[in-house]
């Protein structure tokens, strides 16, 4: 790590030329660091084992999918704390409707996606039309949903049929199906952000709403759509979790801290919290960093609470490395 700075600069140039977010430095360092620890303490059993490497990816699926949506919202200069209870809502509603019957699956999926879209729409409308701060709006809707599902379903509700478990457990060849979905989502997120008009407009709205408005964009509509997409990714995460857990319960969302963690991974991935800059590949790196940390610590038998401390420090350090040279005051 103490090689010359010239090298570092060259590397940076390279990263920039292929437009890879700088968070991949962190990813590489964490990966190599984990690998070295593994080599010294576990004789390379962990990082040499493809199954464990795949498990790292599986560990990333739930957070990764919702983080794609979160990235979009944050790129648009907003934030979404309600994903956590959208996940819960999805898990309870889908397993409640499915009741272990395969025939109910399409109905359940349709309904939870509709609900997700509804939550996103409400978030977007409150933020754009009532001009309520996005943090408060989504915290509020999150609490509202939480109250409704906790008072309606206080427990595991229904169950998913065995056939639905393929989402969580099936593999195609050696590759888990869910990992394929994760990468499809990342790819879709990348596509939407960089290859559609909506994406381009979202960057505009997040970067400078006034500029976007003066360029003739319908800024409100762009933001509302972003919130809908974000809620839909939360729904997908909810479906993945419910297929893993076989049933849904109101606490599955908050148990995974999907709200704050998806924001953290997004921002660690180089997306500007204020919006207008960033992308899903950085977010993927952020998610992977967290998973590698977990797996390495688990396998080496390190106290798991240290990994939480590390998460916190990585968030601060990674973001500081982007902001430290900024001239603006942070608040």
């Amino acid at each position, binding site marked *: 790590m103490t090689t010359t700075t010239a090298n570092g600069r060259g590397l940076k140039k390279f990263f920039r030329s292929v437009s890879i977010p700088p968070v991949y430095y962190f990813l590489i360092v964490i990966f190599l660091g984990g690998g070295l620890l593994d080599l010294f303490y576990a004789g390379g059993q962990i990082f040499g084992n493809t199954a464990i490497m795949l498990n790292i990816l599986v560990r990333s699926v739930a957070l990764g999918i919702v983080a794609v949506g979160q990235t979009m919202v944050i790129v648009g200069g907003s934030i979404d704390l309600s994903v956590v209870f959208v996940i819960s809502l999805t898990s309870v509603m889908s397993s409640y409707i499915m009741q272990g019957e395969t025939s109910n699956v399409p109905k359940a999926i349709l309904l939870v996606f509709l609900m997700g879209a509804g939550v996103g729409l409400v978030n977007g409308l*409150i933020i754009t039309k*009532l*001009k*309520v*701060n996005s*943090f*408060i*709006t989504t*915290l*509020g*809707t*999150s*609490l*509202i*949903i*939480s*109250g*409704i*599902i*906790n*008072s309606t379903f*206080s427990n595991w509700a229904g169950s998913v049929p065995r056939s639905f478990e393929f989402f969580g457990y099936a593999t195609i060849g050696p590759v888990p199906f869910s990992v394929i979905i994760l990468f499809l989502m990342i790819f879709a997120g990348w596509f939407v952000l960089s290859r559609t008009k909506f994406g381009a407009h979202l960057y505009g709205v997040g970067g400078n709403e006034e500029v976007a408005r003066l360029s003739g964009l319908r800024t409100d509509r762009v933001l509302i759509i972003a919130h809908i997409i974000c809620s839909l990714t939360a729904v997908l995460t909810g479906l993945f979790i419910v297929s893993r857990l076989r049933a849904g319960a109101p606490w599955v969302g908050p148990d995974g801290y999907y709200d*704050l963690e998806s*924001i*953290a991974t997004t*921002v660690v991935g180089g997306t500007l*919290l*204020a919006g207008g800059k960033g992308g899903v590949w950085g977010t993927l790196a952020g998610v992977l960093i967290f998973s590698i940390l977990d797996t390495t610590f688990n396998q080496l038998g390190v*106290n*798991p*609470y*240290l*990994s*939480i*401390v*590390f*998460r*916190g*420090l*990585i*968030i*601060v350090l990674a*973001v*500081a490395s982007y*902001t*430290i040279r*900024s001239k*603006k*005051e*942070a*608040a």
Partner: protein
Amino acid sequence: MTTSAVTEKNSFMKVLSNIWELVKKIPPVFPIFFVLFIIVSLLSPTYSTANGVMAFLRRTAPLGILAIGQMIVLATGGFDLSMGSIVTLVCLVSSLLLANDEANTYPTIGLMLLLGAGIGLFNGFVVTFLKVPSFIATLGTMLAVRGAALYWVGGAPKGYFTDNFRMWGRGYIENVPLVGRFPIGLIVLIVVGLISWFAFHRTNYGKQILAIGDNVRAAKLSGVKVRLVRMSAFMVSAVLAVIGGVMIGGYGGVNVSIGEGLEMDAIAAAVVGGVLLGGGKGAVVPVVFGAYTLEILFSMLNLLGLPKPYKDSIQGLIIIGAVAYVAISQRKKR
């Protein structure tokens, strides 16, 4: 009182309009609280007895203190998400350090206050010098502090609180005239409230905080030491979180999820108390009443027999409503 351009009206109308002006200035949280309080005391006889009222005042005191701390950071334009974790840290670690020995209580509380100040300093440093937005900075500390607390105690609740530690949150002073017994927690809230009220409304500090939250550049050009003030705001908030933590610890029982989500409750209380996210507005007393208003509302829901989880929904509606109300009334003024 000034060279007002307003023409002289007849004096009665003037008095009336003056009164109306004064009424308009009352933060809406006060009348709302008192109306709710009257409803609740009609619903349940307990709330019209001194004992019942004191018990209610006592149990909301910790949230009131946390809300004051959160308000100070919100007024600078930041967030402090690490508060809940600090409460976790205080409860878990002090139950370990107390080792069931009353002699350890005050050294432990002292150490916790120091730790809190240190965490606040770290938050402030990361925000002002590393320029990480406070939302992210305190999210990081939130995880780090929580992890560190759990690591310290080995991931499991251990030990127990001594009686003189628990006194601060749960204890009463007996045989007080008029009210019978007076909760110590409420005294702590009153003392903390008075000190922060004084610091916030009657010293330069509070005015500088509001100036920074309102317009950093103008504050800086008027000579305000922005970094110092901002760092101190995070320290105050963290220290108040420690005090709140000690009081919550007073209710006994140690568990690892204690304190979780309290930062959001504190933000909600502050918002209901009229604090603007983004900074520049805030006052101590309405924020404390914000906490009490939320709590009395929950009591009312309970007395009406609604299931507990509905309190979340109501809280959500209220904070959106409170902010929308401010946003809409601001737009009207312009």
